């Protein structure tokens, strides 16, 4: 009898607070299930049979790690909110004669019950859903699913171990909360009159400053590499800015609204504004959290969605033709033209030997040097690697020298330049005057070819600012730079040869051909030092690309679902706990003459503000970081701004719809509590 008392109290406690516990346990189940699914997909052998699975597995493995950390933090948060709402109950037990050890037992059994339900539910749901997720992932990364029903024991064990630890920590935290408060404190925990917070101008302005700084960075960055360096700075600034602004700004806003008598003393605003002002300190923090989570979801989904949708185009950007042979070597060598000719002939011969026609072929080479662009001159003395500062990346350029013949072959034009003249194209906004200098040589700009950049230099064009200089005789120009060396004494100029063509072969044979050509290539260039060379076929790369982008998109969807659900739960808990607090207030107001209609209106006005602020700000954040995200996607070879805008729009709409549904449900629950 005695030993059964605590479990009984625990069960009762959960049942009587089902309004709070049902969503909490649902979250626990979901977290466990998602962890299990990711672990299964990421760590089991299921994926290893497929080609290129390594990338997808790496991504999922990383995701599992993120998931475990996020899950822990989030469950901690919800559980503290939950315990807070029940401190009064524990206070009563304590008045009735339970000591802290006894209370600890109640908390222990409650956690145990939640743990048991979450584990069973989570793993069962995980096993069921993982089959579904597996099909989804397979479809996304374009492999044939294997239908089998074996349950990976390793994943089950890992899930149990990790989440048992999480629950143990949760138990410790709950125990701490209950233990370190006296009976009287427990009973009065939610009664204490709280002074409405004062508006803090300094913090508010600081927050706006952070936000503006983050936005400016996000909008100003031109170069993908500097984007990579600055992205996290921008993200952190925006996060801090959001928190500060929402915490102080919301108080400020309420104060301003309260000062405006004609607005404040309106039936629908009066109650909502004052109760928001009263809670704004707490509100601000959770609004900011929701806002950040929403922004993460929007950025994640729109970028991975865009990457995934654009996969074919991206492959084309990287590998313009079915077969792409390329070789690169540092230093100047007068025999380059001959080597180029030999390689081209050799590959052509091998390909014809294989029994196919070469079509759509382009073979050319160019020379390039990296320098620091200043006042119309590419300075080769300032070495960017040596004087590394992030800002400088915007001015680091790769100068590419190309022969006019190669230019005409690629573009199909019939242009010409005289000696000392050049056609000049830049991939980013840099100022180019009437002449461009590279090191000691200067070239008169005959014409600008900025619009041809993407075909001239497809794989490099996006990452570093590229300056293409089309000259009359490229070998002669390159020879002038033969002696220019960098600080390590290495020659600065590099030679890059390409031979791109299509065939009339099917996918399988294209891959086979590229293998044969690779062999040939290796043999041919064996005795040449410092050369990097590869033959890549579109088809071969395709599965790798799809695997990467599919894996990212899948991870994006999974994480988004989890983040969204977290948002929903934060909102739900916030509103329910406020509803419980407000119950007595609305009771008083009804006695004083508040009609049901007034209550509805006032709840709607409050909810709308609470719900609208985060999503509006999240959309604002999205709009601000989209340019920098675009630059980052360029690193993946994605250069489709309109598509990114579309996916961003679609994600915002989907999130918005989901959010609206939550709003409806939550405000109904709130209304039911208070009236």
């Amino acid at each position, binding site marked *: 009898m005695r030993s059964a008392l605590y479990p009984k109290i625990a069960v009762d406690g959960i049942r009587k607070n089902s309004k709070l516990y049902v969503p909490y346990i649902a979250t626990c189940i979901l977290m466990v299930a998602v962890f299990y699914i990711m672990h299964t997909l990421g760590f089991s052998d299921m994926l290893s049979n497929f080609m290129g699975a390594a990338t997808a597995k790496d991504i999922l493995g990383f995701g599992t790690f993120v998931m475990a950390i996020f899950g822990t933090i989030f469950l901690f948060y919800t559980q503290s909110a939950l315990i807070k709402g029940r401190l009064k109950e524990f206070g009563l037990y304590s008045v009735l004669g339970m000591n802290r050890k006894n209370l600890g037992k109640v908390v222990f059994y409650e956690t145990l019950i939640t743990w048991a339900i979450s584990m069973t539910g989570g793993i069962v749901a995980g096993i069921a859903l993982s089959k579904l997720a597996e099909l989804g992932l397979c479809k996304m990364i374009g492999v044939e699913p294997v239908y089998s029903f074996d349950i990976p024991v390793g994943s089950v064990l890992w899930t149990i171990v990790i989440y048992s630890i999480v629950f143990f920590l949760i138990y410790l935290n709950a125990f701490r909360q209950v233990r370190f408060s006296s009976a009287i404190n427990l009973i009065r925990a939610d009664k204490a009159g709280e002074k409405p917070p004062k508006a803090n101008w300094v913090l508010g302005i600081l927050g706006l400053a952070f936000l503006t700084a983050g936005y400016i960075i996000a909008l100003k960055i031109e170069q993908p590499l500097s984007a990579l360096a600055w992205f996290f700075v921008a993200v952190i600034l925006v996060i801090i800015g959001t928190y500060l602004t929402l915490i102080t700004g919301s108080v400020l806003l309420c104060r301003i609204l309260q000062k405006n008598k004609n607005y404040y*003393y309106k039936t629908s605003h009066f109650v909502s504004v004052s109760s928001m002002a009263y809670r704004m300190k707490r509100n601000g923090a959770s609004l900011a959290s929701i806002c950040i989570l929403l922004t993460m979801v929007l950025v994640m989904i729109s970028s991975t969605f865009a990457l995934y949708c654009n996969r074919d185009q991206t492959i084309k950007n990287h590998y313009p033709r079915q077969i792409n042979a390329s070789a690169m070597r540092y230093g100047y060598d007068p025999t380059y033209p001959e080597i180029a000719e030999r390689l081209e002939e050799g590959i052509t011969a091998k390909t014809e030997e294989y029994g196919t026609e070469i079509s759509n072929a382009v073979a050319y080479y160019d020379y390039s040097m990296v320098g620091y662009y200043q006042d119309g001159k590419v300075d080769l003395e300032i070495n960017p690697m040596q004087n590394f500062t992030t800002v400088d990346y915007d001015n680091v350029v790769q100068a590419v020298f190309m022969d006019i013949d190669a230019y005409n072959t690629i573009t199909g034009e019939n242009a010409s330049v005289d000696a000392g003249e050049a056609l000049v194209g830049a991939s980013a906004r840099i100022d180019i005057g009437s002449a461009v200098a590279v090191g000691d040589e200067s070239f008169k700009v005959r014409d600008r070819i900025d619009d041809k950049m993407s075909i001239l230099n497809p794989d490099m064009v996006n990452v570093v600012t590229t300056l293409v200089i089309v000259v009359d005789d490229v070998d002669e120009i390159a020879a002038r730079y033969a002696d220019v060396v960098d600080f390590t004494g290495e020659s600065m100029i590099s030679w890059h040869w390409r031979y791109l063509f299509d065939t009339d072969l099917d996918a399988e044979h294209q891959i086979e051909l590229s293998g044969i050509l690779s062999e040939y290539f290796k043999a041919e260039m064996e005795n040449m030092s410092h050369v990097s060379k590869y033959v890549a076929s579109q088809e071969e790369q395709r599965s790798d690309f799809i695997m990467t982008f599919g894996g990212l998109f899948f991870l994006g969807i999974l994480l988004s679902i989890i983040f969204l659900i977290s948002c929903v739960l934060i909102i739900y808990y916030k509103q329910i706990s406020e509803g419980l607090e407000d119950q007595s207030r609305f009771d008083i107001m009804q*006695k004083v*003459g508040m009609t049901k209609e007034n209550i509805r209106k006032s709840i709607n006005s409050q909810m709308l503000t609470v719900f609208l602020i985060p999503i509006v700000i999240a959309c604002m954040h999205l709009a601000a970081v989209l340019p920098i995200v675009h630059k980052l996607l360029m690193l993946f070879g994605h250069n489709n701004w309109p598509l990114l805008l579309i996916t961003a729009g679609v994600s915002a709409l989907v999130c918005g719809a989901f959010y609206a549904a939550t709003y409806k449900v939550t405000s109904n629950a709130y209304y039911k509590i208070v009236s």
Partner: protein
Amino acid sequence: MSLLEAKNIKKVYKTRFGGASVEALRNVSFTVEKGEYVAIMGESGSGKTTLLNILAALDKATEGTVILDGMDLTNVKDKDVARFRRDNLGYVFQDFNLLDTFSLEDNIYLPLVLAGKKHEEMRERLDKIAGTLGIADLLKKYPYEVSGGQKQRAAVARALITNPKIILADEPTGALDSKSSDELLALFKEVNKMGQTILMVTHSTKAASNASRVLFIKDGAIFHQIYKGDSTDQQMYQKISDTLNLLAQGGDLK
């Protein structure tokens, strides 16, 4: 015609599963004239709060009618009840029922805001009564920053500001110390002198001795009533005590 007329009011509470029923009020009838200051006395559980709740339309009578200034409360539709209360009644509660999210000023404005009044008008009305109630300096404070007596005065201001036909007070001195109680009772008297009708439920003899008429309620029925007439507060106090003694001994005055 009387301002308030309660006729044959009966209230039966049923337990949740429809088993035993408890009769809280049996056949209560009385009237309140305009400008009167009536106290209803009775022990805990005698049904006086139930009666007040019915008069305030917070609760529905099982039988009987309540007529306020010619309007039948039992006919007011559910959705109009709150509005009716706001426009016609002022309610003063034992535990003040001030909202801690509002300053005293905003607490007082609440019924007017709910009625959709303009801010200037609210301001004017508050200025008129704030002096009398002695809360002019406290308006910007929050409920937890002021004493119980001050809270109750703010609550009275909230009840008065709508110019109600009648003020209903439920144990208004119940949560106050004796000094604050005296001040509040003096205030009620003053407000009553200005023509405000007051109906107060109390079990404090002292509070009741301020009223112009005292109704005694026992076991859900009106048992006796005393008019103050020209007697002083002391004499009234004595009369009430005697009646209460009789009541306690289970005597019958009728």
